[in-house]
């Protein structure tokens, strides 16, 4: 299942793009991110604690920015290992379109889990994707003044 959404951000596209590539910004807005280290221009390693109700598991995640098309689009690939709990693989595609002086941020998120999480967590996996992507993009958008969520 793909989760889609968009935000209208009152900022120029380049500014939004820069923030989307700023390690400090990402660290702040990736849900449950406990640490984020930049390995090179497009690779990061993060420790993410996923707390979804009864589940509380720590994931060591390799994040890669793929299909970079500055300042218009990229895909954020996250591969997480949560030890015995299993693995998560997420892809977030982000596209930025100019609308006058605003930027329209469109995102599409897909999450797959593997191992034990897949075996027992599938009832709520889509719900989790919605929750995590909302958390990320809503808090990302909130740093701009008066962002508007578009349905």
């Amino acid at each position: 299942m793909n989760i889609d959404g968009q935000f209208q951000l009152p900022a120029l596209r380049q500014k939004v793009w820069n923030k989307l590539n700023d390690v400090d910004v990402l660290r702040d807005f990736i849900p449950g991110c406990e640490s984020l280290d930049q390995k090179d221009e497009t690779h990061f390693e993060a420790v993410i604690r996923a707390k979804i109700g009864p589940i509380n598991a720590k994931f060591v995640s390799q994040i890669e920015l793929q299909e970079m098309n500055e300042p218009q689009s990229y895909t954020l690939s996250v591969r997480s290992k949560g030890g015995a709990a299993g693995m998560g693989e997420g892809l977030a595609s982000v596209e930025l379109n100019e609308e006058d002086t605003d930027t329209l941020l469109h995102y599409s998120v897909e999450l797959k889990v593997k191992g034990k999480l897949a075996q027992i967590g599938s009832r709520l996996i889509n719900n989790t994707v919605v929750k995590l992507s909302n958390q990320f993009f809503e808090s990302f958008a909130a740093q701009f003044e008066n962002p508007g969520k578009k349905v």
Partner: protein
Amino acid sequence: MKPRSFSFTTAHSVEHVIGLLQEHGDEAKIIAGGQSLVPTLNMRLSAPQLLIDISALDELRGISLDGDRLRIGALTRHVELQSNKLIAQHLPLIASAINHVAHVAIRNRGTIGGNLSLADPASELPACSLALGAELSIVGNKGKRIVKAGDYFKDLYETDLQANEILVAISFPLATTNTVHGFREFVRRRGDFASCGLVMNGERQDGKLTSLAPVFFAISNTPVLASKCAAKLLNKTLNDDLIEEALLELDRELPVIGDIHTSTEMKLHLAKHYLREILGEINV
């Protein structure tokens, strides 16, 4: 499947619980009935370092009338809700919903406080709380606060309850002679988690609905009150056309999230069907 090691302590007062929560932060978990917590411990999906057993706190027990509301202590077990005369008399919606919660051995242990603290999106009682306009009494280090159910459910397994707080009681307004209610849920086997459910509570006067709270559960990250749909149905004589028109609102206002068993489309289909059915039932 054995849990990771943890410590276990029996709380002797609510203050004691708050103190322990303050001290241990995220690493502490409250255990009441344990019917949701222990499976996740067994499967090692969570591994708190400390379990705080609150089952000895008699102050969290009891079902009692409190003015025009019914107060239910957080430690009240599902089985008590099922057999309590005050519930049967004053909260018919809960009385009918509670029969659908899991199986007897689970109802014998599971508590309303635990249920609402976890807030599983497929669970019946959170939806009932929302439909009935419940108020949740929460105690933290700064004292007690009351949260309306409408402000309580935030997101998937996320409520207004903070890490260092404990839910102590839930209070519900009493049903009146005008109260109408309905309960439906889609389960493939009795006692399973629902894949789509509806609890509805409202008031009817002179054949018209004067208030209406249809709350859908197991369709999204939280129970959802379909207020726009309800608004279309208020103070009018119900007929099929009106109902169908109101149902169209559900397409717009229900943030349905499908799962591997039940697609988004099917959940929406069921949601409409159940509302249609309940409205038909109360309109008879």
